[in-house]
């Protein structure tokens, strides 16, 4: 046993796969201990907030101010509101409004803005201009208000009795900075929020955990069924073999995913918990384990040590467990690993079709994908809602496949270096 484990950990592929999987498992276990936010809590009012650090604007007004005189602050401020494309569009408008093109210098912000202020009129109808373009100019015009101002912003509060605005005396100058560490409310959303306004990272960790559980349950169920049937069929042979192989062949010709879809659909959503889905996946994916185990057992069945065991009067159960199982064990472990990874993929596939577990109770990787698709995250370019999920699925299955290949090299003499 020790020797085998040593051998296994000499396989480079296995180690890489193992490290990735261990890292994923570690994150899944440690993250919830450190960050105790509820994974399904709706925190964002709005959909798909981009990844980043969210600083409470109200609190930052009251935080200690530091004056930093940075060289390009004003230029950056202007650039954030007025891109090169915007300047070209302004030029286009001004030319259409009758300003000679040579009088417009789009690199001269001050002059451009003055010309714009003097000539832009949202009511003017320019021939050939679409409504989308017209809306664009209205938005642009609004965002340019006070762009060149060097004055600070004055803070005022509403008087509760009169409703009038009263200045607090606070002025936020353009060179004022706050230190994030001193702002009372800062929330880091490394992967932004999803369509419900949930923290994607927290949800992803919880979902990975559930998906791994589904994978494990599905893998174990599939492997147990496959192993049992394979052992019985291979060792006993005869009618039992024919019977089991008949069923196995039936399952082989029906594509298991179709079967999975049909069963999931007929269970109905109210009864589709994560465990149920896992068991259903397990029940539809045992076939090739059974066939492979049976083939191995048939070749083992007439070996000397088995015959000896038979002659000694050992029971069927004893022979299977003591004389046959150890020889197929390495194969079964490898099959289990593959079953787990295919279980995770199957859950994802089912959920994308809307046949996964119920939504509110637990997040799963497939459900996250499903909602990202429903809210058109790929079309809208909200990559953080689905790409991390994809990468997680890919990493888990990739690591398990690597481990499997590594094991294969160790146990299969033909593949040994």
């Amino acid at each position, binding site marked *: 046993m020790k020797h085998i484990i040593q051998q296994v950990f000499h396989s480079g592929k296995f180690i890489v796969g193992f490290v990735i999987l261990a890292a994923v498992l570690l994150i899944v276990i440690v993250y919830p201990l450190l960050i105790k936010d509820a994974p399904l809590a709706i925190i964002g009012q709005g959909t798909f907030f981009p990844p980043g650090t969210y600083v409470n604007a109200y609190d930052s007004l009251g935080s200690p101010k530091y004056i930093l005189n940075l060289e390009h602050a004003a230029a950056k401020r202007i650039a954030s509101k007025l891109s090169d494309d915007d300047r070209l569009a302004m030029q286009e408008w001004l030319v259409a409004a009758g300003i000679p093109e040579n009088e417009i210098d789009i690199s001269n912000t001050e002059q451009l803005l003055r010309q714009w202020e003097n000539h832009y009129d949202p009511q003017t109808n320019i021939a050939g201009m679409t409504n*989308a373009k017209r809306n664009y100019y209205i938005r642009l015009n609004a965002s340019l208000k006070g762009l060149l101002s060097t004055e600070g912003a004055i803070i005022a509060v509403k008087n509760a009795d009169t409703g009038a605005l009263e200045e607090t005396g606070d002025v936020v100058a353009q060179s004022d900075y706050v230190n994030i560490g001193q702002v009372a409310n800062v929330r880091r959303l490394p992967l932004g929020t999803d369509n419900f306004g949930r923290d994607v990272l927290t949800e992803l960790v919880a979902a990975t955990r559930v998906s791994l559980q589904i994978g494990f349950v599905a893998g174990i169920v599939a492997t147990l069924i496959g192993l049992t049937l394979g052992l019985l069929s291979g060792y006993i042979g005869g009618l039992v073999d024919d019977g089991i192989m008949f069923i196995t062949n039936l399952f082989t010709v029906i594509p298991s995913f179709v079967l999975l879809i049909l069963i999931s659909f007929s269970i109905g959503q109210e009864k589709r918990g994560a465990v149920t889905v896992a068991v259903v996946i397990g029940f539809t994916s045992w076939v090739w384990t059974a066939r492979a185990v049976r083939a191995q057992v048939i070749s083992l069945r007439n070996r000397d040590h088995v015959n000896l065991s038979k002659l000694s009067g050992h029971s069927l159960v004893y022979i299977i467990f003591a004389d046959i199982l150890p020889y197929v064990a390495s194969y079964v472990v490898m099959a289990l690993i593959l079953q787990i990874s295919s279980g995770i993929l199957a859950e994802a596939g089912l959920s994308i079709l809307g046949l996964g577990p*119920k939504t509110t109770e637990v997040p799963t990787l497939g459900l996250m994908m499903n909602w990202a698709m429903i809210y058109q995250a790929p079309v809208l370019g909200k990559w953080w809602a689905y790409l991390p999920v994809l990468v997680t699925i890919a990493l888990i299955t990739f690591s398990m496949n690597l481990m499997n290949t590594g094991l294969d090299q160790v146990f299969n003499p033909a593949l040994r270096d």
Partner: protein
Amino acid sequence: MKHKTLWWLLSSLTILALFLSACGAPTEAPATAEPTEEATEAPTEAPTEAPTAEPTAEAVAPADVAASLPRNETLYFNGQQWGAVVGWNPYSSSNNNAMAISQQDSARVTMFETPYLYNMLDGQVYPLLADGDYTWNDARTEITFKIKEAAKWSDGTPVTAEDVAYTWATHVKYNTPTGASNADYIDTIEALDSQTVVVKAKLDENGKAVNPLMVAAYVSNNYVIQKAWTQTLEERTGGDATELLADTAEDVVYSGPYHKFFTDDTKVVLIRDDNYWGQDASMWGKLPAPKYLAHTIFKDNAAGSVALAQGEVDVSQQFNSNVQVLWLNYGLPVSTYLPEAPYGIGASLPTAFYNLNSYGLDQLAVRKAIAIAVDYPTIIANAMTNQSATFDQVPRSLMNPTPGEQALYDHEAVKDLQWAGNDIEGAKKLLDDAGIVDTDGDGWREYNGQKLSYVATCPNGWSDWQAAIEVVAAAGKKIGIEITTNYPEWSVYQTVVTKSDAPLAEGYDIFMMWSAGAGPTMPWGRIRNMLSSEFIGMASNWNGNWGQYSNPDVDALIQAIPSESDPAKLKEMYTELVKIYLSDIPSFTLMYRPQSFHTVNETVWTGFPHQDDGTNPPVPPLDLTDGWSIAGLYNLTLVNP
């Protein structure tokens, strides 16, 4: 083993690649010269191949042309047609032919036409087949209107008053859906002469019209169908009602500007009738701009959205979540009716109904607690991606956000009843005061010793509703009432919810349904649908009041409003209804929703309706095919002529 591993690796990579490729930002569609060239080629090819068999060549041509319609002559839609067309029979309501047939408050008038066109923006009707406004007699029991001299059928014969009368007679004779839903209000429709139509209302025991509102709505909601063709149809089907409704009516005679060009299970194409009577100066004075109206049948909303972004769809009536991203982030020439959120004009009130027979939901305190605890701003921002007015902007009532309806009730009188939501403390206090507290310490409240536990539900796949229901469930957790969610398939959901002759099935404690939108009978029709007890006890109830609420005061008001014509009295009655609704809380509105979503891509066409577009009367944002919105088809121009 090796192969298996390889296969798995490959499959995971393929999945990754698939999604990666899907996430690329949609780029602006390239110039549309290509399809145009192909299309002009098509007709020249067909005759040379089969000069002797001309009919077959013609029969093939639409398919060829439809395969590559000239982009500069075609207006593409999405969100209306979700499967192959069944038929063209205007008497039937099961044609699955959204592009041509839809008799509703703003009836679709592409192929068949109504006497009047309803305009949801100003609440007025405008004559189409009719000539001038209709008039009521003094007793408000008869409507009289004339048919335009110019109005012609596609076979060249004039549209007459007799056609209008015969259409109604046929609806009644064969008990069509239209006949069944109007027979209680309309007695007869008669032709005084070839141009004059009289619609006579059913009278109650006092000699007054049962419901003048429904009578007036008939003339803008329902098509006029040719008498001669109807007789052909009757002859063909031998007077059998089922067969008449099942006839696919490929030979139907129509009066509208478009008719069938091509359909299969991938697209529906209507072609303009260049002899359309409406180019007469007494109507539009010209033909509508697009020669073809085409609707590709998309697999789902996502596919339709991609097509919209790529400029393959001009007018989108589906829910495109975060639609502003298309112009803000991608700079596409896409726009909506309003430039900023809520982007459209709200017309209907998607509402969560309480099953009033569920345990504990007969208690006002429980209903009110849940309703005031729900986080409506989050529903609007997340589920609707801000494509709904908020309840701060338009406080809740039974009215939709249009100014016309908002003016119909006294805002001050019900101010204290209009909750804004998110009132967790208030909800808790309400329940505590009612003695509904957690007695056994499990974290959930009990009423008379039994735990309050509900299922909130809506159809599976209705994404914005599902997201809204999730927020409702979250509110329950905050106030100690267990609410779980469940999403049955629509086929199951609709049979349960529309069966009102028995208590609702388990698992339907809080469920979402729609309300009526904008129309000539609104807001009365919507209020009736939401509150009237006449809809309890039906085997199939598609009208409303799905939670089975019953209040004699409300029924009396609903009964009285249609015959009332004094605006001050009406306002009083509507205010009373809003007051009762907001105090009894048999249901609570979750969001406002446009009559139909209206997003346009101006890559090829421009001149779509938008706020302050200068049209008078204003063209409503309804797909350019429904009611008065068809006027928009005459305003379209090409971006690059």
